[in-house]
């Protein structure tokens, strides 16, 4: 087994990987940019080394610096996490050249599946059903307009190098194409350094359901159930769950076997995800492959009882999978919500800043994967994901009520977060009935945001509580200021305050 693993990432996923290393007796080695010296992933590591300035192009995207640290620290393996260089075959190749095991697929398999157009070609050969469209990059706007006309609007423009909705645009009608083309190309160029886009027909109310696969180097590939990721805002996943509320055993087997077949065609090893769209009639269409660990992997871990990161490490070390497809048992239901430093009331603008105080949930069935702490400053340099809150329940209903309970326990000051929005989603009757599709949240959002502001009987009390707390807080500060700059510890009780005040008066 490996002795030291370089974690070529930051934030919650770097923390997640460090935890797996610790449990395996492997030293986790962190890298950090100038903005991240005090970040949680550094604090949780066994060793940590600086790799450059805050912008990721000068640090987390620098293969040369990563190789440098790996050599210096004596790392025998590298885990790329997700994002940054995770799907860049050059990193995998650099690892191979430096004798470091890359914890992920081979560079060749990554290339065969990582590009959407290449993956579609492979899927076509493997007989996996696909959404009608054009797998090749489109040269210019005029071609896009012509192809879209042929497929019929609405169509979806997607970045060849894309992921996470970046460089993706829905085009409802022909007159929207020029603006959408411009935006998609520029966003793709900005995000991936590759402005190529392609087109496909837009399904009406499809679900996003993806299959987790895992393969070793001895020819075994298994699927570990599915994740339903239909709750998205602007093509970004917001809530994920496993199993899907519409899944049936035969559909799971069909999708799982299609995913494994595709992986086999590509010579794929390690963890990966095959994404599908599923329509009302439970037809499934291949979307793309993510050749890495997903943000939402914990829901799969909670229903299978497997530790995907540890398994990734084991198969990268050449071990055989310790179980067969028939041993995989899905138990209960898990739901995850992604906590972001952003302000839902202000068009979801990122909300960087220092976390002043924080209360995190606990108790039965709750898992929190975070990259932050009280006192930590969320910077503007990176993705504003604070962490993921995941609930497990014996049924979907129990998982939903647990997650709702846990979100209500979660509190943070100093920055704004999207936590309160999850309360609205988790209480929404359509969500509770599982009637979700990829545009569901975008369409439902105005109603959900309005619900969050609605005034009811209980809100009068909430307002009263706010008024009296503000007064108590202000008077406490006034008194502290009065006491000539001396630092007063917070008083424990209104009553005690009152006594002090009477003394002041007396």
């Amino acid at each position, binding site marked *: 087994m490996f002795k030291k693993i370089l974690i070529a990432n930051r934030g919650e996923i770097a923390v997640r990987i460090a935890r797996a290393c610790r449990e395996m007796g492997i030293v986790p080695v962190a890298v950090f940019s100038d903005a991240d010296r005090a970040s949680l992933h550094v604090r949780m590591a066994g060793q940590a080394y600086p790799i450059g300035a805050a912008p990721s192009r000068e640090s987390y995207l620098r293969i040369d610096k990563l190789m440098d640290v790996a050599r210096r620290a004596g790392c025998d393996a590298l885990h790329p996490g997700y994002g940054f260089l995770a799907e860049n075959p050059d990193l995998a190749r650099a690892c191979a050249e430096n004798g470091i095991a890359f914890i992920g697929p081979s560079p060749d398999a990554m290339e065969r599946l990582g590009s959407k157009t290449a993956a579609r070609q492979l899927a076509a050969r493997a007989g996996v059903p696909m959404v009608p469209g054009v797998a090749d990059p489109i040269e210019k706007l005029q071609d896009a307009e012509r192809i879209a006309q042929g497929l019929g609007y609405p169509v979806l423009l997607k970045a060849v190098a894309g992921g996470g909705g*970046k460089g993706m645009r829905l085009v409802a009608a022909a007159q929207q194409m020029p603006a959408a083309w411009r*935006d998609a190309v*520029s*966003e793709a160029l*900005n*995000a991936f350094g590759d402005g190529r886009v392609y087109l496909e027909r837009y399904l009406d109310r499809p679900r996003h359901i993806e299959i987790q696969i895992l393969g070793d180097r001895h020819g075994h590939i298994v699927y570990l159930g599915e994740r339903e990721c239909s709750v998205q805002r602007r093509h970004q996943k917001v809530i994920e769950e496993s199993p899907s509320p519409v899944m049936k055993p035969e559909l799971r087997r069909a999708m799982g076997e299609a995913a494994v077949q595709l992986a086999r065609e590509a010579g794929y090893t390690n963890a990966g995800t095959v994404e599908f769209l599923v329509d009302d009639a439970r037809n499934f269409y291949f979307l793309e492959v993510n050749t890495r660990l997903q943000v939402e992997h914990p829901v799969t871990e909670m229903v299978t009882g497997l530790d995907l990161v540890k398994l990734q490490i084991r198969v990268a070390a050449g071990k055989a999978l310790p179980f067969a497809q028939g041993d995989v048992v899905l138990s209960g239901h898990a739901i995850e919500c992604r906590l972001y430093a952003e*302000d839902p*009331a*202000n*068009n*979801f*603008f*990122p*909300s*960087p800043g220092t976390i*002043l*105080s924080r*209360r995190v949930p606990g108790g039965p069935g709750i898992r929190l994967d975070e990259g932050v702490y009280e006192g930590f400053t969320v910077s*503007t*340099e*990176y*993705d*504003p994901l604070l962490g993921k809150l995941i609930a497990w329940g014996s049924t979907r209903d129990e998982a939903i009520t647990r997650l709702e309970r846990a979100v*209500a326990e979660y*509190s943070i*000051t*100093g920055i704004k977060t999207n*936590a*309160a929005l999850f*309360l*609205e989603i988790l209480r929404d009757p359509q969500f509770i009935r599982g009637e979700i599709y990829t545009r569901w949240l975008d369409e439902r959002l105005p109603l959900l945001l309005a619900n*969050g*502001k609605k005034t009811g009987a*209980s*809100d009068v*009390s*909430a*307002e*009263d*509580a*706010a*008024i*009296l*707390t*503000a*007064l*108590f*807080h*202000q008077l406490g500060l006034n008194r502290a200021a009065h006491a000539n700059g001396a630092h007063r510890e*917070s*008083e*424990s*009780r*209104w*009553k005690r*305050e*009152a*006594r002090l*005040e*009477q003394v002041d008066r007396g």
Partner: protein
Amino acid sequence: MTYEILINGTKRSVAWDSASMAASIDGRKIHADVAATSSGAYSVLLDGRVFEVTVEKDGDGWLLRTEGREFHVRIADPRSLRRGRDGSVEMEGRQQIIAPMPGKIVRLLAAPGQKVELGQGLLVIEAMKMQNEIRSPKSGTVERVAREGQTVTAGEILAVVV
């Protein structure tokens, strides 16, 4: 003592006798027990009902959060009230659009002097690797707008619509 409190724009008259935990808001009587827990966090019991409330600075007032709701509260100084100095006139008509965080203007969608509708795009800002379209909060005329390519800091004016 009675305090005038502005909460989400509404004025409330609040009295409290802290020794007996008796409060009154616009004449409604409430048994109120407020206890500090952590820094900026309070446990509040109103007639036995439990609230968790957090407080943060918010301009010259406070941002309070409880039960997933946000409240903007400003407490008028009773003395300045007596001097009749409490009213801060709300801006009407002229709308400033402020950058909520540092970013870069990547595209302009409207020019000074142009008529715009409510919700029409004014510019596109890139911040934290995400492009976001900034839309007009009202129908009117663009008075001012930032430069394309300009880097803005939090709080900087992006556009003014009158």
